[in-house]
């Protein structure tokens, strides 16, 4: 793990993402009485994806709160409670369901601080799974992080590894602004090294997941793992790729992007979103206007096809970014 390693001599152990998330929430709840967790199935059921296993037993029903299926209602309650100094973690079983709460998130959580000239703040963390995950069908396979990333006032956190998940969730809970924190159904069981004991990762800091010199691959969330596969395949062909894991979209670590591009002069952005009006399209604009002179090739953007996600495996696999599509995009930048 590059970037913010926890320091020399710190003992590491392998932890699944769901357990890294549970540790982050539990540690913050032990440290701060104002932190609480609410959402569907978070208590008695131990979480739809078992991210809150054992938390009801440890913290009790006052702070680990099972809700009815009413995202708009409990998101609003969380926001109101945050205005009064509590630090709610609101779990969406998936971000697909957050759309019935989107007015509360965008029109209230994101804007209350501005509208009240700083008299109100909303230290809330929304978290849940986003993106496609093996044939969930059109209504359960959306990557909505860039919908939220469009909104000033929100912070958007999209980690990939267990280490990043834990460190960034702790920082999100402590942050005084509303945070949308994105996970993935596909990776809750994925294990990776996580240090024993306390650490946090600051929001707004990208991580170079693999150093390289000939092309910069930018991604976030679970696509980081696809991107690392692509980099490995390139390495075997003798092409040196650098993998920039953005980790947060707002605030965005522009310097990390510019530094990498200034080194490699070629960029491929790999995202699960559709291309039109997407975060990758914004990155392309940003790089091409801020450091145009550093570019030796047009910026490539690998996205999902412009169609709602159908169910069948044969269709889903051609719609999502694939290793092959990413490799072709890299080859185009090297022509």
């Amino acid at each position, binding site marked *: 793990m590059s970037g913010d390693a926890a320091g020399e001599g710190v003992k590491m152990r392998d932890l699944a993402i769901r357990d890294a998330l549970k540790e982050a929430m539990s540690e913050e709840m032990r440290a701060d009485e104002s932190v*609480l967790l609410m959402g569907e199935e978070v208590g008695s059921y131990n979480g739809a994806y078992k991210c809150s296993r054992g938390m009801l037993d440890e913290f009790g029903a*006052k702070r680990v709160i099972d*809700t*009815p299926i*009413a995202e*708009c*209602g*409990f*998101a*609003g*309650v*969380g*926001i*109101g*409670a*945050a*205005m*009064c*100094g*509590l630090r709610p973690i609101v779990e969406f079983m998936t971000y697909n369901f957050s759309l*019935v709460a989107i*007015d*509360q998130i965008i*029109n*209230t959580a994101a804007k*209350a*601080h*501005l*509208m*009240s*000239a*700083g*008299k*109100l*703040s909303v230290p809330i963390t929304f978290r849940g799974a986003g993106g496609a995950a093996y044939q969930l069908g059109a209504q359960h396979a959306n990557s909505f992080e860039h919908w939220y990333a469009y909104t*000033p*006032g929100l*912070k958007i956190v999209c980690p990939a590894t267990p280490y990043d998940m834990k460190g960034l969730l702790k920082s999100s809970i402590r942050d*005084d*602004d509303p945070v949308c924190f994105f996970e993935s159904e596909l990776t809750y069981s994925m294990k990776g090294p996580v240090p024993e004991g306390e650490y946090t990762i600051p929001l707004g800091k990208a991580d170079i997941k693999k150093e390289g010199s000939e092309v910069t691959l930018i991604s976030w969330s679970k696509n980081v793992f696809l991107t690392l596969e692509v980099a490995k395949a390139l390495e075997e062909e003798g092409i040196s790729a650098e993998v920039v894991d953005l980790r947060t979209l707002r605030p965005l670590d522009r310097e990390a992007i510019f530094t990498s591009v200034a080194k490699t002069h070629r960029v491929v952005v790999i995202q699960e979103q559709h291309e039109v009006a997407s975060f990758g399209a914004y990155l392309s604009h940003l790089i091409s206007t801020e450091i145009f002179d550093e570019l030796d090739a047009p910026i490539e953007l690998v996205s999902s096809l412009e169609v709602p996600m159908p169910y069948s495996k044969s269709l889903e696999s051609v719609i999502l970014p694939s290793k092959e599509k990413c490799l072709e995009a890299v080859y185009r930048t090297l022509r």
Partner: protein
Amino acid sequence: MDNDLLCTLYHDMLRIRRFEEEAARLYTERKIGGFLHLYIGQEAVAVGALSVLEEQDKVMTAYRCHGHYLARGGCSKAGMAELLGKETGCAEGRGGSMHFYDIDNNFYGGWGIVGGQVPLAAGLAFAQKFKKENGVTLCFMGDGAINIGPFHEGLSLAALWELPVVYLIENNEYAMGTPLSKTFPTDDLSIRALGYPMARETIDGHDIFDVRSKVHTAVQRAREQNQPTLIEVKTYRYRGHSMADPQKYRTKDDVNVHKDRDAITQLGNKLTSLGMEARREEIEEQVESEIQEAVRFAEESAFPDPSTAEKYAYVGG
């Protein structure tokens, strides 16, 4: 009845009326932009309801918010300056007419999406109960809010979690220009309470004493038993939905029926009949002087510095 209380209620209602009459004038002079939704006619609701709250209680409302802000003790100068978009406004010119805030007085806005404040208010009450503050949240909304999703989800959670909140529907008979008869199948809005379930009440909004006594009962129910209440107050706005509303949906006679029962006029007459004519005149002069001072202050205040346009997007930003 306590004469001082009568004088306070008269003062507080008249203060809202005069504030808004001046706001309407400034709007026609194009000194106020955007939307301006006036509360004129409904003053007895905010003043009566807020007069029974304690200091630690919290108040939230929709976009027709000037009256609630003032009744909760909001500064008229900061309110008028906000309407003019000045940096001395209660939201430093960031909020505008629909987004007044006065957190020091536990006035939590001022929200512009119909029904959106209903779950938020449950959240305020949730925090009051969580922190054992012995506080109650009073949440206002219009009759136009009772069919939208957040209303139902907010009331469902308030009842389920036994939150110390009182929801008060100000039924002024029109959701913008659409009469209630087109949006609700009966004329008793309080029946919405039955399904959650929670206690319910109906109040005559032209009678400030009816407002006070029934809201007080609901507030006590919230404070002592953590039981929410849904209240319908039958009231009326004399002006259009906003300043842009030509009011083709009603006649002058429709409005006059209500003006004849105007709560401010009624209470003013009562003061006179109780032999407090001098006290009444004193209040009227005091209000007039305060509002004129508010207008002067707002007009003389500076606009926010353009270099601060991105301030308050984030905490510390």
